[in-house]
């Protein structure tokens, strides 16, 4: 781990006034700002169509923003070599073709590809790293099984092991609980918590599932949310409603926009 300053934590992922439109004058994202500090367990919540996937693609440098900028470890992710320090757990983790011919170990080894670099073969050291990562998620005994034979919860752990195999400083999850049953979900979030606290890996989770994320994250950002509550926003952020909604000591970062939070009507 890089030593951080005593007063301020290092910002590993930052978005400044980010905007993106697929078509002219039809923005899917407008002025999104966020700052993920080292060690954060950062939740980004939004409904379907709120631009979650687009935001992820901007944050990981797959898309170039229409306006604003992204800094990943202080660099533009589109041209940064440090992208290999990011583990990425896509929805594909649990929705791939079951007949895909790969063993569990082969899938975990994919996590070493970016680290190894182009034109370099994976070595025994990569293999050892992959096995260690697999043991970390308690699936070492399944290394030679076919990935499609595992349960969805196990497959998800395999994909986390794949992320871990690359020695990540940051892991980004895209809708990780889609298609995973409730029991597996609980142990999945317990695993994330452990990686976050014990291994000091910064975690960003993007989801529509408020319920899950509420009692895990230490920071929560709302994408295109409109929060309905009694009283002023100030009261809301200081009051019981937020505490109840999130069940814990978290910091809510509203995503300001035209359609941002407004106070009226019924309780949250």
């Amino acid at each position, binding site marked *: 781990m890089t030593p951080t300053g005593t007063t301020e934590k290092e910002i590993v992922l930052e978005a400044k006034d980010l905007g993106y439109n697929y078509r002219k004058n039809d923005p899917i994202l407008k002025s999104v700002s966020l700052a993920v500090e080292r060690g954060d367990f950062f939740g980004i919540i939004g409904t379907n169509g709120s631009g979650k996937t687009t935001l992820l693609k901007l944050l990981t440098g797959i898309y170039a923003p229409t306006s604003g900028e992204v800094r990943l470890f202080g660099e533009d992710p589109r041209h940064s070599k440090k992208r290999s320090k990011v583990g990425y757990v896509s929805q594909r983790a649990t929705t791939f073709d079951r007949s895909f011919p790969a*063993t569990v170990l082969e899938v975990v080894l994919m996590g070493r590809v970016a680290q190894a670099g182009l034109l370099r073969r994976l070595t025994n050291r990569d293999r050892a790293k992959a096995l260690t990562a697999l043991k970390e998620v308690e699936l070492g005994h399944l290394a030679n099984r076919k990935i499609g034979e595992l349960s969805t919860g196990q497959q998800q752990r395999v994909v986390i092991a794949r992320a871990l195999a690359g020695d990540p400083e940051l892991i980004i999850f895209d809708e990780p609980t889609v298609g995973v049953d409730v029991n597996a979900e609980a142990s999945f979030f317990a695993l994330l918590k452990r990686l976050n606290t014990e291994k000091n890996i910064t975690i960003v989770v993007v989801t529509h599932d408020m319920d899950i994320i509420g009692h895990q994250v230490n920071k929560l950002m709302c994408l295109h949310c409109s929060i309905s509550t009694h009283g002023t926003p100030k009261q809301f952020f200081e009051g019981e409603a937020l505490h109840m909604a999130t069940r814990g000591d978290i910091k809510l970062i509203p995503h300001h926009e035209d359609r941002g939070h407004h106070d009226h009507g019924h309780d949250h």
Partner: protein
Amino acid sequence: MDTTINQILIPLIAGLAIAVVAPTIGMFTVLRRYALVADSLAHVVLLGVVIGSVVGFLPGIFPYIVAVLAAILVEYLREIRRVPGESALAMLLTGGVAAATTLASYFKVEINEDLLFGALEKVAVSDMLMILGIGTAVVVCLLLFWKELVYSSFDDEAARAQGLPVRAINMLLMIVTALTVTAAIRVVGVLLTGALTVIPVMSAIQLNQGFRTTAFYAICISVVSVGAGLLLALTANLSPGGAVVMSAFACFFAIVGVRKVLKA
């Protein structure tokens, strides 16, 4: 005596080289749900052949140029999401045939059956050498980017997020596919070239192994299919493309059948 041996050996060597290369490519195209790409590109080769005949100068080079250009175009359309992958292939296939037949009728060029179904007696030493050269280059390319190809076939989103050059890798795969099908057409013909990238891979997947092992089995199945098919074609004077693909199907159903029996 010598000529007879050559008549068997030359197409056999050419065929076996294709038997190794085609399913190696197929591992990636099939798993990316892009199984029809080889077939579509093969149809575009027709256009290249017709252009070659019309131009008359170095006719052999035009099929390769046209196929590679088509591969680049279709991959570009897919990448910018103008056209969904599947539709892009359908347009490529039909567009290639339409342009070829139109051009052929205008310039009174004949598209003969050999081109569609393959003709072993017409495989020259130069064709064989071309196939061996292209085959070797393609396999080397695939081996160099093997781990990136595997990763992006399984989860291209994660591969992109980690900064792998997925676009370039996809483009490379399309180009080597175009080169391979063009080379293969001499032996198995336009209509059936694509089958060798798909059927042996599907057969090997039935065996339920890891990636490397599956690739290895796919190549073995393909070599057996091509070997048996070509020998059959040579001895019984059958259409080589048809005989090879029927052998590949025989392998597929044999594997499915045996697995069913073993499971029961």
